[in-house]
């Protein structure tokens, strides 16, 4: 086990910069997920840690030692690749043996390690098979097993679940969580799937265009997004956004738009100046149908109702403004009905309309 730290790490392909000075500290045993849309630099960052890409600037340290110029084999890491990268001409056992050979262990030690990992991952019966004779889920497990036998200090996962079907993905995701709990090894995990990130991570690093947008626990990035990108990227369905202007009202600060006005709680209102253009963010789960006696209810029209079993997603419209409410399925309204909704005051997020930063 080891800590990993990236200091001002830069990567460019020719004149094209893909990672712009990334700073990241990963504690010993921490499970960190690099999350972001395609092309955000998350895989490139992981590959730099692995030693598969040169670092053009900055420093990467593992257990306190700068490893920028070390070969992958000298970094005490193991990696699980997106397409598994199992050696097709070797059996499962040979795949694992191959990973152990450079460590020059005795045959008894090799056998013991393979037996241990195979038992942990349920690979015992597959050891004599070749990758072509395995299902996708089994190949995934072999790829993890091959990484685990080496008992690395840091595990690197590059979108390991993206080739599995939805059901298997959930299952393997839980297995990975259990394994991390059991082994306690530092993990850097790349994905574009926020469910994987939210369920697995101790710490999520959200990236966009080669920059880190926010680092925080799953709760932090969900509840206190630092900017509009994080706010809309995390959470499904996405956060509703309303472009509003702050005004000084009789009872406090009011946000107004052509569609509706909203009286802000005092502590939020204090952050705004009259006339300031802001973007109000409200998660669909913080929108509920108004009950009798609710002040500040907003009237909207129901456009679409998506029934999901326990919940329903209701697409609402006020004038040209569309937004979504996530409500209990039993409360779902009929189509084209006019309904009154209220926003949970604790779930209001304010962002500067120009910079996109949270206020």
């Amino acid at each position: 086990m080891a800590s990993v730290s990236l200091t001002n790490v830069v990567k460019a392909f020719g004149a094209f910069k893909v990672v712009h000075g990334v700073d990241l500290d990963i504690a010993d045993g921490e499970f960190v997920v690099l999350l972001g849309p395609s092309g955000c630099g998350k895989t490139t960052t992981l590959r730099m840690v692995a030693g598969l890409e040169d670092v053009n600037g900055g420093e990467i340290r593992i257990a306190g030692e700068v490893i920028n110029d070390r070969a992958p084999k000298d970094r005490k890491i193991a990696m699980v690749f997106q397409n598994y990268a199992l050696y097709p001409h070797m059996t499962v056992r040979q795949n694992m043996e191959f990973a152990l050979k450079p460590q020059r262990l005795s045959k008894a030690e090799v056998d013991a390690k393979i037996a241990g990992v195979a038992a942990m991952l349920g690979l015992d019966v597959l050891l004599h098979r070749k990758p072509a004779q395995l299902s996708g889920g089994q190949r995934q497990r072999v790829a993890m097993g091959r990484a685990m036998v080496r008992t690395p200090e840091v595990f690197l996962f590059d979108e390991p679940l993206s080739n599995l079907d939805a059901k298997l993905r959930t299952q393997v995701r839980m297995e990975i969580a259990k394994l991390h709990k059991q082994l306690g090894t530092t993990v850097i995990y790349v994905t574009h799937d926020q469910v994987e990130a939210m369920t697995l991570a101790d710490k999520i690093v959200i990236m966009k265009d080669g920059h880190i947008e926010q680092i925080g626990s799953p709760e932090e990035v969900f509840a206190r997004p630092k900017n509009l990108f994080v706010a809309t990227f995390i959470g499904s369905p996405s956060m509703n956004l309303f472009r509003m202007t702050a005004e000084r009202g009789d009872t406090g600060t009011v946000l107004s738009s052509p569609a509706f006005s909203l009286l802000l709680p005092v502590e939020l209102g204090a952050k705004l100046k009259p006339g300031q253009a802001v973007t109000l963010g409200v998660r669909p789960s913080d929108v509920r149908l108004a009950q009798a006696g609710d002040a500040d209810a907003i009237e909207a029209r129901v456009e679409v109702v998506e029934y999901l079993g326990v919940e329903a997603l209701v697409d609402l419209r006020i004038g040209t403004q569309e937004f979504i409410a996530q409500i209990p399925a039993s409360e779902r309204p009929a189509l084209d009905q006019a309904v009154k909704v209220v926003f949970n005051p604790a779930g209001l997020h304010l962002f500067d309309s120009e910079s996109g930063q949270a206020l």
Partner: protein
Amino acid sequence: MNRLSTRQATLVYSVTGIILIIFMIPIYLILASSLKPSADMFSRPPTVFFTPTLQHYVDLFTLRPFHWNIINSLIVTLGSTVFSVTIGALGAFALSRIRHPRINDAAFWILSMRMFPPIAVVVPYYIIFKSVGLLDTPLALIIVYSTANIPLTVWLMKGFFDEVPEALEEAAQVDGYGIVEIFYRITLPLAAPGLAVCAVFCFIFSWNEFLFALMLTGSSAQTATVAVMSFWSSDAVQWGRIMAGSFIILIPGVIFVLTCQKWLVKGLTLGSVK
């Protein structure tokens, strides 16, 4: 694959049969002529039934040192094949993996070496080998054949290496291996069908080659193809011996191709099914 209907099967087997006959007729004529007594060689109509004789084969090895010619051919062919496949595979691996904007130009330049008409370079080769004392040695032919075989191997192997996912090599790097070990433990075994294809092409080209062998060898390094033609002189053409020699020349090629066949078929269909 779907099973063929009886009609389709009949058609497929008929066409295959016809093609087979077309290809087998020369081989039959070579074998039959090599076993016919000289008197029956040109009788009209041609004799189909005759008392076979091994006299031409005996003459081949007693009147001439044909076994030496065969050995020369084997040395030259195997030498060139092993050398070309080794160097060609290494070159192809480099071309397949190096990222450089001009790498395709380099690949084409290598292939262009194969485009020289042999007759254009045979005289320069003669002069060069004469000046360095390599004339009439197997090494001269190994060098010449390799200059033709290496470009072909590089191009064929590059295609096979391109098919091997780089992630496998990266996985091996992370597992603790250097580039040389990765090449022969991971990439090369996965491109083995390509190696077989290249080996067959190199073998056949070198084994059958006549022009360079005729011009660059005299007596000590003479190959079997040239030796056979020496039975053709201005005063007599000894067809029986020529045919016996030709039939012997056919055998190693067939054995080599059959040995590689398992890989050859796999190799040629590789990439057609994903």
